[in-house]
């Protein structure tokens, strides 16, 4: 019995150590942190170069990609704001698919963010002023999860209202290939 307490505390400590890596993934910041607003302001509206030119992707990390809660909020907003109307559940339709590794306007968080906020030619409307910045960042995180760019324990599982053949958590990891070419022409 003498060792019982030592072992108890020891294993408690070890378990904590092992799990501490994943802990911020559970953070739930309900009130928008000023940081996310700051991120917004640094992003330039990218001047578009149709024709396969590579734009330097602004390297801004999206804090929400570390939070399972934020990604799931993004997922909810993706449906509620009717992104599914054009992009379906990532498979594409009127708009391009989001589950593959082709990113017409870049696959970095900042690229996607400005795609949402400023819109893109051929149908993608600009949402600046409509979607608050933090919600847009949540959507960005979700969009990136669709092609397996997020850690598996952050990406959402299957939906409760539609058949999710392959939930983002089970999507094989892909690398964004950046701007891949001219925007598709509408048929």
């Amino acid at each position, binding site marked *: 019995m003498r060792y019982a307490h030592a072992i108890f505390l020891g294993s408690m400590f070890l378990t904590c150590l092992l799990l501490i890596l994943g802990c911020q993934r559970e953070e739930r910041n*309900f009130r928008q942190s000023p940081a996310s607003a700051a991120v917004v302001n640094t992003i330039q509206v990218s001047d578009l170069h149709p024709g396969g030119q590579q734009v330097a992707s602004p390297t801004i990390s999206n804090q929400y990609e570390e939070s399972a809660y934020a990604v799931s909020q993004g997922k909810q907003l993706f449906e509620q704001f009717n992104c599914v109307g054009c992009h379906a559940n990532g498979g594409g339709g009127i708009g391009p698919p989001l589950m593959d590794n082709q990113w017409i306007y870049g696959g970095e968080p900042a690229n996607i963010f400005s795609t949402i906020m400023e819109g893109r030619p051929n149908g993608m409307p600009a949402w600046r*002023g409509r979607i608050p910045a933090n919600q847009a960042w949540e959507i960005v995180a979700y969009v990136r999860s669709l092609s397996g760019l997020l850690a598996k324990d952050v990406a959402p599982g299957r939906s*409760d209202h539609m058949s999710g053949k392959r939930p983002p958590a089970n999507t094989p990891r892909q690398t964004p290939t950046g701007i891949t070419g001219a925007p598709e022409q509408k048929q």
Partner: protein
Amino acid sequence: MKALRTLAWIIVFGLLGCQSNHSSLSAAGPQSKNIEWLYWLIFWICLAVFVLVMVFFAHGTARTKVDEQEMAPVMENPEGDRRARVAVSVAVTVTVITLFVVLAFSIVTGNTVEGLSSKNPVTIQIIGHQWWWEARYPNPQADLTVVTANEIHVPVGLPVVVLTSSADVIHSFWVPNIQGKRDLLPGYQSAFWFQADKPGIYHGQCAEFCGEQHAHMGFEMVAEPVDKFQNWLSQQRKPSAQSTDPSVLRGREVFLTHSCVLCHTVRGTDAGSKVGPDLTHLASRRMIAGATLSNESGSLAGWITDPQRVKPGVLMPANPLPPDDLDALVTYLRSLQ
């Protein structure tokens, strides 16, 4: 009987304060009245049983209590055992009979409570959302369907049927003064009857844990005479009020160009999203934010600017509007009678 009940509150429970309005024991409908009656029946039975058992336990212990430390065990007491056998048998018989009484009254009351119906009831569709209530008064003519949120009006004295469903997780619809609760299950649709007999405003509450803001998922049930109810209904059918007041128009502009429009509907404008509550007649409601805040300019402004302060985790985002935009928006919303 009424006096006895009051006495029970005072004596049995000690001076535990005033009767609350929001209570399953101040019935305002035939069903809750029946349930209240059954509650008190079982209560008195239980009280009697409790007192009896405690008395027997206390007496049984006291009468044979000894203070000796080294007491040898009693090995045999045939006479005592015989008497105990009789006593226990009698007690078990009484228990069984009592349970039958409870069962019978329970089933009868259950039938009465569930038996409420009508050929031509007022029909309300209740859809539970995280964390608000959508209420629809369906009409064969689609544009006459009334859509409102978190405030349900019902006529006094008429049976109402509620068609329940859920948009996301399990919620439970409950107005203690009127009727017991009913779960709203995703994937299930069910019908549920109630009737209010006393006019008044009754608080309702989600009773099944449904996430972060389960605590603030309230609503109000306004029971009013039939003509007042009809007036309310026809008022709610109208599209939103059109005003020429410049500040109202300005607020309308703010509403339509900011994030409000992504989630809310105001009939008569371009705003038609179904994510959040319908705001067409927002100003006619007593409360906002799931019966959490009273519907006044100040609380409305606070709610719009920072809903997460009032209800952390709620799905409405913060809207840090410039002060004059906010004023205009509130003015507009307050004009939606």
